């Protein structure tokens, strides 16, 4: 049962983690993240890195779609922009990786600003289709520019930290996870500021927001820019993780994946984006395990990809119909149960 949680000042009320229990669990979580690489094998480290990259990008999309209410199906394309920026910088100029990541974010942000320009004139579905159009155009540019190695793509050398090349899952974990944590904390803090509140006002009713004195175009563009910055950095991490970037690395289905992740996780919730990204990344792996265990004759691998596609679609549909607030809401219910125990919720 949750007792003695009366807030005595505004600072306590505004705190990111507002109870002692929550802070204790965050500490446990942090320690777990520190210990994880020493306990897990390569496969689980690979998954952890992938989840972290997806979580970073999904958090970015959540700023745009979950909090500002602008649906984008271009997140993967912005990730691609970031990944290509990193690849070009590493290959041609050999600049330090932190700078590369930031430049990747900025380049993707500029792309996002350009795509965001129609957002004042068109809304909802029209905007979603414009972002699809933008991602096709970006793909086309990647595939047909000599600068980016055409359809063959580019290879990326591993990032070097204090003379150590981060070339295994174990080593790159120490780059990817801290960066992701930084970005997630940044997003969580964003919604305690004036800008974040403006985003939420725009989502809830954009015309009212404008009447209240929020310049729509500026804030919508800002939201697009921030979200693509996240995508760009996540794309840069992706490039360092897989170390090869091709025009096909960031297909439209990946954008849909991110939208699905924030739907399944919970739109407009920081925790939701992380849960969703982890869940959607893990489901195919679990499926592969399950199908491998099933006593089916012949080539079971043939079924893996279609079943994965079906489950992917089913998850979106089922969550939207039965649990529109996503995993974050389930999590909140669990928490509420413990807060109110032994009374019924």
């Amino acid at each position, binding site marked *: 049962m949750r007792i003695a949680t009366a807030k005595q000042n505004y600072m306590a009320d505004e705190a990111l983690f507002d109870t002692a229990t929550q802070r204790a669990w965050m500490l446990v979580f942090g320690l777990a993240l520190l210990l994880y690489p020493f306990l897990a094998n390569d496969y689980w480290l690979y998954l952890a890195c992938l989840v972290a990259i997806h979580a970073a990008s999904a958090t970015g999309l959540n700023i745009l779609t979950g909090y500002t209410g602008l649906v984008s199906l271009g997140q993967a394309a912005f990730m691609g922009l970031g990944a290509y920026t990193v690849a070009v910088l590493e290959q041609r100029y050999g600049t330090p990786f932190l700078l590369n990541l930031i430049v990747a974010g900025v380049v993707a942000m500029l792309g996002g600003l350009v795509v965001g320009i129609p957002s004042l004139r068109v809304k909802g*579905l029209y905007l979603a*289709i*414009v972002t699809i159009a933008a991602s096709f155009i970006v793909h*086309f540019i990647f595939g047909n520019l000599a600068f980016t190695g055409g359809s063959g793509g580019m290879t990326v050398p591993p990032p070097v930290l204090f003379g150590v090349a981060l070339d295994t899952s174990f080593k790159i974990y120490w780059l990817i996870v801290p960066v992701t944590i930084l970005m997630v904390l940044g997003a969580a803090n964003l919604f305690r500021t004036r800008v974040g509140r403006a985003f939420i006002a725009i989502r809830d009713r954009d015309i009212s927001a404008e009447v209240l004195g929020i310049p729509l175009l500026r804030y919508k563009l800002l939201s697009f820019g921030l979200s693509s910055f996240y995508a760009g950095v996540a794309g840069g991490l992706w490039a360092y993780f897989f170390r090869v970037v091709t025009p096909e690395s960031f297909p439209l289905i990946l954008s849909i994946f991110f*939208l699905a992740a924030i739907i399944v996780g919970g739109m407009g919730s920081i925790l939701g984006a992380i849960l969703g990204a982890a869940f959607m990344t893990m489901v195919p792996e679990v499926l592969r395990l399950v199908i491998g265990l099933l006593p089916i004759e012949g080539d079971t691998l043939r079924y893996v*990809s279609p*079943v994965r596609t079906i489950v992917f679609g089913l998850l979106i*549909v089922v969550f939207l*119909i039965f649990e*529109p607030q996503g995993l974050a809401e389930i999590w909140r219910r669990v928490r509420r149960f413990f807060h109110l125990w032994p009374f019924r919720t």
Partner: protein
Amino acid sequence: MTDWLFLFEVTLAGIGSGGLYALAGLAFVIVYKATRVVNLAIGEMLMMGAYIFFAFASGLQWPIWLAVVLAIVCSGIMGGVIERLAIRPMLGESPISVFMVTVGLGSILVGLVELIWTADQRRLPEFMPTEPIFLGEAFISSKVFYGFWVAVALVAIVVAVFRYWRGGVALRATASDQGAAYSMGINVPRVFSLAWVASAALAAVAGIVVGAIGGLSSSMGVFGLSVLVVVIVGGLDSVVGALLAGLLIGVLEAWAGAYLGGEYKLLVTFIVLVVVLMLRPYGLFGTREIERL
């Protein structure tokens, strides 16, 4: 003057495929008009129709006409089931949620097709005359030619049905004002079902023709992307818009494909889309929504 002949031929082929875009666009517009649902799974529904036809015509070796009828009927049923199971519970939710449901549906349909028929490319049995057609000196592939006329005939039928049949009138009434239609005794939920059934059946026909021209594969849903562009350029809720935009996009894609190369097709379509949306955010013929506080 061979260049002009080539241009003429390319344009004709473009008009031919534009007819199919118009048909699929019509399937989209029917659902949007009646239920305000943006059906992103239109390409996948089209693919499903084509595969059902393939199952009857090639798998079971039944006569072509029977397979066509069965494919249309089965697709219609599928449309009804989708409406009842996935769309009906979403009534009143935000348009974006419903839109995402159709994205999920599309993924499920692709998965089903890959599970049953594998992801390999399939060929439909030949059922159209293969004699090439000549218009003056210009050559047109017979499949494109007949496909176009199938599309034209269907579009004409649909437009006539909308105009004169009671169900069609009910559909238009629902589209223009749901509340008023309800109070005039129109069974609005039934109209919703009807719209989905009709749309899926139309998509099946379009799918069969597209499959006959280009072959079947689980990535046929990409056709749906062009269809989306078509309906958006035309204005989501305009039948005339869908028809004209279908032809326009068809011709532009054919030109891009012939003079620039195949990979430019989608690029050109999307550039047209962006340009049109920047100039007229509600499409060429769409109704302009007025927002009040």
